């Protein structure tokens, strides 16, 4: 089982609602983010192209709930762990705030909550998915670009979306950690 989010980037308009919705839902401290939105481009479509032959997309980046997460491997106390549902979670009781995981994460999506002295990051709204709901960044996505489900279930909505996308389904740079989240980008070049 692997819960994940599939994002149709052609529907993402960089409105930042996922990021702010996440903050409301999870009480993320001011100055910290579980979810960032990058602007990729505008980039010349082909080398040598110039305005207006440019293309652009927005890339929401949070914890990728990796298949083989480096953050779990480097955690000295077992606080960071991979759960049966495929999500990566932090047991705050066990976290000693050493921040090895913060440094190990290739996507920079973990931070130390300096008041609680523990590391935090996206939980995939585990409190909501436990109730059968979807993460807040999914329901709160203005462009309805985001979809939540089990990628190991071929009949799930997300699996079907990915299958349909074929070669247009992408993941963030994989450095051995196996990011789970999938981005679908049609009509333009994936630039990471």
């Amino acid at each position: 089982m692997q819960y994940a989010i599939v994002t149709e980037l052609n529907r993402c308009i960089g409105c930042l609602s996922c990021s702010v919705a996440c903050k409301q839902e999870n009480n993320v401290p001011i100055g910290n983010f579980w979810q960032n939105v990058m602007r990729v481009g505008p980039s010349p479509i082909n080398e040598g192209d110039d305005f207006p032959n440019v293309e652009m997309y927005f890339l929401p980046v949070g914890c990728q709930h990796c298949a083989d997460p480096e953050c779990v491997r480097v955690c000295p106390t077992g606080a960071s762990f991979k759960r049966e549902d495929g999500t990566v979670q932090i047991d705050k009781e066990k976290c000693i705030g050493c921040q090895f995981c913060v440094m190990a994460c290739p996507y920079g999506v973990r931070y130390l909550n300096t008041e609680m002295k523990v590391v935090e990051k996206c939980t995939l709204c585990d409190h909501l998915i436990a109730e059968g709901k979807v993460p807040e960044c999914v329901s709160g996505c203005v462009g309805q670009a985001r979809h939540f489900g089990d990628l190991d279930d071929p009949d799930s909505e997300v699996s079907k979306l990915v299958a349909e996308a074929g070669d247009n389904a992408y993941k963030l740079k994989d450095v051995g950690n196996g990011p789970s989240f999938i981005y679908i980008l049609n009509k333009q070049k994936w630039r990471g």
Partner: protein
Amino acid sequence: MAKLTMTRRSFMKVAAATAAAGAVTAEAAGPLAALAQDDTAAESIGEVKRIRTCCRACGKMECGVWVTVKNGRAIKIEGDDSAFQSMGNRCTKSIASIQAAYHPDRLLYPMKRTNPKGEDPGWVRITWEEGLELAAKGMQEVIDKYGPESIWTISGTSRMWPMATYMGFRQLYGCPDHISAWNVCKGPRHFAGALMDESTYAFMETVGRPKVYVQWGASPEISNYDDSGRTVVDVQQKADVYININPRQSHLGKEADIWLPVRCGTDGALALSWANVIIENKLYDEKFVKRWSNASFLVCDDIEPSGYECPKYTIGTFEMKTRLLKESDLVEGGKPTRFMVWDNLADRLTYFDAADDVALWEGETFKIPTKGKEAAQEGLYGYQSQGWVPDTTDFDPKIDPALYGEFEVTLKDGRTSKVKPVWEHYRALCAQYSPDKAEEITGVPAADIERAAKIYATRIDPEKDYGNGGIHYELAVEHGCNSTNNCRAIMSIVGMTGNFDTPGGNRGSTRASANSVMGSGARAVPPPLPPMMDKILGGGADESPLLTWWQMWSNAGSVYQAALTGEPRPMKGAICQAGDFMNQSSATEAWDALKQTDFFIDIDLWHHPTAELADVLFPAQHWLEVPGFPRPSQGSSGALGANVRCIEPPGETMYDIEFNIAMFKAMGVPWDTDPDEPWPSIEKELKIGLGRNQEWADFAEEFQENGWIDVKVDEPDKWGTYKRYETGIQRGIKGLTTTLGEIPRMPGFNTPTKKFEIWCTTVETYHPGQNQELPIYIEPPSSPVSTPEVFEEYPLMCITGRRIPVYFHSEHRQLPYCREQWPVPRMEIHPETAAKLGIKQGDWCWIESPYGKVRQVADLFYGIAKDAINAEHQWWLPELPAPEHGHQYVSINHLVNARSYDKLCASSHLRGYAVKVYKAEEGAPPGMIESAQDPRLKEWLPVYEGRA
């Protein structure tokens, strides 16, 4: 253990290499400062309510939302999926509304200043009684000393619509002048609409899912401008073709099938070029053009312009004078309302009689059409209904008004004259803007212009009796001067392609049964009448005389000039409601103009820089707090809902409607016509103002239970029917949203000719001899073409006004969720231009025009032309001290030429002007918040104590 070769830092580097500029990514750690600090065990067992209401975090769209309230505190805002008009949309600004309501810097009490204007005001808390007394006395002194015409009112665009500054306070003081945010935000569209069809028809029924979706100078996916971002993305994704007209690559524009990157300010030339392609390829809706526009009316250059008395837009009448040929030009005793056309069938002249009580072609009688069919739009959301489209009626008796040709007529004095239909003149105008010519002007490749126009105008579903959809045109075409003609040129395309009042077309404000401007004006006193109204500043014969016809706003620059020079009269009193001084004309002049007032009143939520110039300052209620307000869609979404009170208002804040009534009472001027209760309670005002034959409480309760009303069902004739010029409803429609009561059924439009006026007789009357009867293109007043000498020193074209996802104009800079996402104002600049100037990503830069300079941060952006930059508007810095709060450092309108404006509607020249850009060696304005990690952001988190 597998070795990771990529650190967070190197990932960011990769991302940065592919992203010219990443969006804000702030991942540094900070102490916990959670939003809801009230999650104690004791409170977790308290009452939790979920209240259905309407968001007002931006001043625009009526997004349905749910507010969760726990123990009386709002803790969460979510989208209401049942709201068909917004599809459950809920944006960043909506979420952050809780931080606004509970903000530690909210104004909670009336205040009076103790220091001179221009210094820290030294605010002292006073009672409402004292504040109102001061306000009444202060304004009365101004009136006594200088006359009522030395007062002006200032309006913004947010906080519901009970803004008495639009008209109510002009009733109270008897002053003609008003600086209205409307003047630069859909006002020019409405002004142009009022001239040619009806004021609000620029609003497009986006929720009707047009098959070809055209955005023109618009980015509603981010602004939620009269349509929710969610709807806009959904419509774009489902449309067969998406055309985007924008000088820069926009948030949704990245998905465009055709992007026309028009040179800033040249939209009018592009619109005429589209029309040229459509006319020459005969892609226009001949029935509409012949039967419902004045295209077939004959233009006669050999007659003195003449006409008849017509109503001004607001109050009074004017003598319309036109060179369109009338029966009265041909025969003694002929009627001036009978407009002559050439009938190709009978080869003779016939006429259309535009008299108010006729509005018919010769020999016709009016019958309300009964034949038609249900609209057949695909993909409508939720329970939104289709609506009914009457079949286009034919001429009866049959005629064929000529659009082409030249005809000889004998005038009543015996002279003969050669006349041509309006259409020939319009066609000739458009022919000056062939795609090749338009490419030279606009920079858009001719082939793309032609392709886009053909796709738009060629019907995808020819069996439908209407076109592919409207044109979603917005502010960009209103800000570069020539704004009225830009809007007319675009609306002419909409009309001639059969997309006026059609499914997915441009069809104006929703005609609901509730009053969307409730509480904004008094019922007991009239607005200032002529000749007082004719004193409106900027409305002179050599300025913008149509302002005396329109009467809804003044030329902002003229008001400031009068304030600063005393000419033509001193301007010494002002009142502002939900507005600010930075939204139009020169912010520098505006600031000085307010500073020199004898008395200035403001009601606000914040210590905005505008508020810091007030003599007396009143605290307003937030949208989560107000007692109630009906919310019909202002645009064409066709929903009716409400704002209801979610939380108790803090301190001594007051609802704007109550404030308006209290201001009248303080001056002893009646608000209501009931002599026993001239100043009604809010409960009574809600009942009277609602407009539906219903108690407010019942209306609000039904809304809680049933959600948003589908106005097509609720008002089948006024809204559920399309092509209302056919059914006689159009003539009863005027202004924003509300049409109350019965409408006498008369066909056609509310223009002097009762037609869709491609040839505008009102402009012809007020601007004689200027050839502006047709929507001509005028090169922008500041451009490399019109002012090459200025561009030698100031070589870049400054675009401004694009929307920021977390801000609404001047709002939300002090909300942590917003500011941490977007801490500094950014200026988009092409990387090659930046390189030449030695500017790097993230550098603070000076942007300088001949009129002023401010600082913003460079954002290297390949999606903009090399000779342009794109700056952000309406910035101020709440963290910096009173009275300026940093506006002087960052607010872009300090660069505006206050003497440059659209000659027809007086909209100021806000984008498309010459600037130079250079690195600001001194960096950021001193003391401002520059990053998400600034600890001051946490000091802005909600406080729940001390609100009593």
